[in-house]
């Protein structure tokens, strides 16, 4: 991500140190990951130490320090979903994509992540792909759903 775009985001938040997480969230949302150069720029302009940025970028699950795949696949592991069999959905998705949570496949197609509750508890188990929610998903349905994504 180029410096100008990073600067624009920083300026929108008045370069306030308290808005550090909001700034990183915007960069993550647009770029899908946080490149080292962008973090360096944020550190300089907000005058916060790199250790703090490093901590925040790894502490919070929303951030990725490595490029992500084209499609973000999230599986909810909340209690309601767990009780309705989320573990088996996860296993099936791991099988199909060949990756485990936190990983991206070699073709950069999918990034898999578990989420601790999306708030759709009545529809568990829940599979979320690129923000679209597939509720009441059965392990046998997952292949069909994933196929639709290029």
């Amino acid at each position, binding site marked *: 991500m180029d410096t100008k775009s990073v600067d624009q985001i920083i300026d929108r938040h008045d370069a306030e140190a308290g808005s550090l997480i909001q700034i990183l969230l915007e960069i993550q949302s647009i770029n899908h990951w946080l490149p080292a150069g962008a973090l360096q720029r944020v550190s300089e302009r907000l005058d916060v*130490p*790199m*250790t*703090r940025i*490093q*901590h925040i970028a*790894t*502490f919070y699950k929303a951030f990725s320090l490595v490029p992500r795949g084209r499609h973000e696949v999230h599986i909810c592991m909340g209690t309601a979903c767990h009780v309705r069999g989320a573990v088996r959905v996860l296993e099936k998705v791991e099988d199909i994509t060949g990756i485990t949570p936190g990983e991206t496949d070699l073709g950069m197609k999918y990034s898999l992540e578990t989420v601790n509750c999306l708030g759709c508890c009545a529809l568990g188990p829940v599979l979320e792909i690129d923000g679209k929610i597939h509720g009441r998903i059965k392990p046998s349905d997952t292949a069909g759903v994933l196929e639709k994504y290029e």
Partner: protein
Amino acid sequence: MSKILLNIDGKEVTAQEGMTVLEAAQSAGIFIPTLCHHEKLEPFGACRICMVEAESHGRTKLVVSCVYPAEEGLVVRTRSEKIDRIRRTILELLMAHAPDSEQLKELAAEYGADADRFEKEGSFCIHCGLCVRYCAEIKKKNAVGFVDRGTRKEISFVPEIALKECENCKECFPLCPTSYLQAAWVLVKALASDGS
């Protein structure tokens, strides 16, 4: 600065206002074990081994003495069956990481902690945070920090800063109770591809 009178282990202790219970105890020569405390650094409250029983207004509770402010009339007990049990468990949990740490071995002997109670863990960092906080608060270089959270938490050098500053500093090295810091430093140097 006004004076506060409290009672620690049956001894009358006079403390200055603003002191913590730990500082008050230390000023009276009463020993409370610590792992993450350093007089030059802000209290951290992470190791929990300095916990003591504090009684005021008829109620007793367990407090972290390095953080808890000394109060007028507070009655403190630095040892009890419960405190000892908790300290022993904390030591056993830490020794799953660093069984060879001299500091831990000494405390383990005092509290009867079994170094082999729990399965050994890979990393021998005990997260006292002394290195991170020393570099941030005293040297103000922020060359090393924490990353991630929970059981995945670790210390991590910022290579750009560390490779410039640490070789000629290393003031935090003696603070590390397990020498994990030194090992991490060796790794950072080794990973620096141009050997500088």
